[in-house]
């Protein structure tokens, strides 16, 4: 009777009832708990590592209590941290204020004139491959120990990703969008402003986020070489070592990374505000 030679192992499959969506508090707990637990684990690992150190080397890892009593609870240290962070931030932002406009200008020039791209791009890569730390002594000799050389170091640290991401973004503008503008005889500046920049903006912002994170690192590194002028976090790190105040060093480290994260988040937030509504990377 059977027309098919297939042997069937028919089984019964049950329906899956609708599961209620987790409540807001459940969801936020689910989002916060893993990183929180991870943090606790890190602290435990820290304490455990510390307990394994010989007593005379335990100063390398201050206790949480020491961090509180020697650093974060002391108004003098707190105001020093605050001032140092402000100084470091001002160096980082001043560096970005140089590298972003110049980088963007270079990106546009390379996009507009292919010959310029051919001429400049290899040197951009070369610049990126020079360890910036290695040219800091040269900068010192040339420019002294003021604010300017530190800012230039940050600019060098953060430069590379700006023209390269902008160029990539500009080159990726939809071909038919360009045709659309050409059909209306739109000039090159019009195309750049109305099609190029908006289209390249998400790519450029990916570069800006990288640069923003590097800016704070660059600022701190620059200070390690220039122990003069109003002290930033880098200077505070060195001075804490000299004064044997390791609690303060750790405090400065923590504030440094918070600063770096804040600048990164600032650019992420800005990017999100600008494109989340229309770009595929944005949330619905």
């Amino acid at each position: 009777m059977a027309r098919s030679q297939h042997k069937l192992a028919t089984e019964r499959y049950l329906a899956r009832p609708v599961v209620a969506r987790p409540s807001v508090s459940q969801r936020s707990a689910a989002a916060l708990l893993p990183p929180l637990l991870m943090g606790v684990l890190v602290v435990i690992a820290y304490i455990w590592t510390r307990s394994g150190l010989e007593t005379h080397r335990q100063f390398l890892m201050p206790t949480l209590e020491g961090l509180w009593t020697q650093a974060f609870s002391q108004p003098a240290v707190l105001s020093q941290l605050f001032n140092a962070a402000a100084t470091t931030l001002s160096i980082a932002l001043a560096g970005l204020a140089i590298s972003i406009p110049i980088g963007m200008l270079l990106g546009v020039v390379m996009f507009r004139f292919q010959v310029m791209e051919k001429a400049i791009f290899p040197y951009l890569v070369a610049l990126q491959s020079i360890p910036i730390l290695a040219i800091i002594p040269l900068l010192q000799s040339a420019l002294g120990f003021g604010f300017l050389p530190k800012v230039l170091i940050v600019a060098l640290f953060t430069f590379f990703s700006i023209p390269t991401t902008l160029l990539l973004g500009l080159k990726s503008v939809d071909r038919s969008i360009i045709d659309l503008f050409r059909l209306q005889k739109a000039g090159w500046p019009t195309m750049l402003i109305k099609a190029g920049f908006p289209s390249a903006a998400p790519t450029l912002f990916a570069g800006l986020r990288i640069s923003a994170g590097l800016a704070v690192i660059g600022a701190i590194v620059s200070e390690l070489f220039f122990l003069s002028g109003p002290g930033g976090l880098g200077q505070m790190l060195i001075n804490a070592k000299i004064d044997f105040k390791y609690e303060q060093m750790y405090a400065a480290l923590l504030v440094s990374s918070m600063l770096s994260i804040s600048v990164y988040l600032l650019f992420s937030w800005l990017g999100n505000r600008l494109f989340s509504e229309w770009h595929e990377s944005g949330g619905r």
Partner: protein
Amino acid sequence: MTTSLAQTKTDKAPANDRLPGNAALMFDAVSMTFPDGTQALDTVTLAIQPGEFVSIVGPSGCGKSTLLKLASGLESHTSGDIWVDRDSLGYTFQDATLLPWRKVLANVELLMELRGFDPAERRRIALEQIELVGLTGFENHYPRRLSGGMKMRASLARSLALNPAVFLFDEPFGALDEITRERLNDELIALYTRQKFTGLFITHSIPEAVYLSTKVVVMSKRPGRIVASFDIAFPEPRTPELRYTSGFAEVCGEISLALRNAMEG
């Protein structure tokens, strides 16, 4: 404001009419060879009279789209002459080509903006065109939130806002499903009846070509030549029932046959 070119819907001129003064768009022995030596088009001669709606069907890669690029000046032909008023051209691409960072309203305003229209004027025209293509209520939506058909409607509205005398369509509905496509065909007929542009329409779909056009032209495989031309005599404006008549099927059949020969020959 209608351009004088589009207002005069003249009687059909004889097929061999070669007076560029009469035609809204004319290809006169146009050939095109790419820099690498491949020939895309071979002495194409086609005169489109004001108010005519001509569709071109042909094998993939036969140079159909290239004809539109040449007519609009996006690319240059290498011999022959093209006669057209490039300032009154409309052009829709294979995809809607909306700017993703602009809402529908700003997208529809774009071409007018580039032409330097007064802001209030372009707002008024844009809203009018959006209503005509049935997108009222979606003015403030970003393109990513629209369906394929709605994107294409916005794209049509954008071109129509300039009230083009000659409208070039590069397979605009090729990516849409059958039902949406037929609806947009009807909407296009309504727009054509209303704005009386001259149309040159590229498509892969023979029924679509027959339904929309006053003339269907068949091109050979590359290098593209015109191998057959059919005047479509069904009364206008066409209505959906036409698609189910035997006369319609017969014309489609004839063109299919010509296309099959073109692909082999």
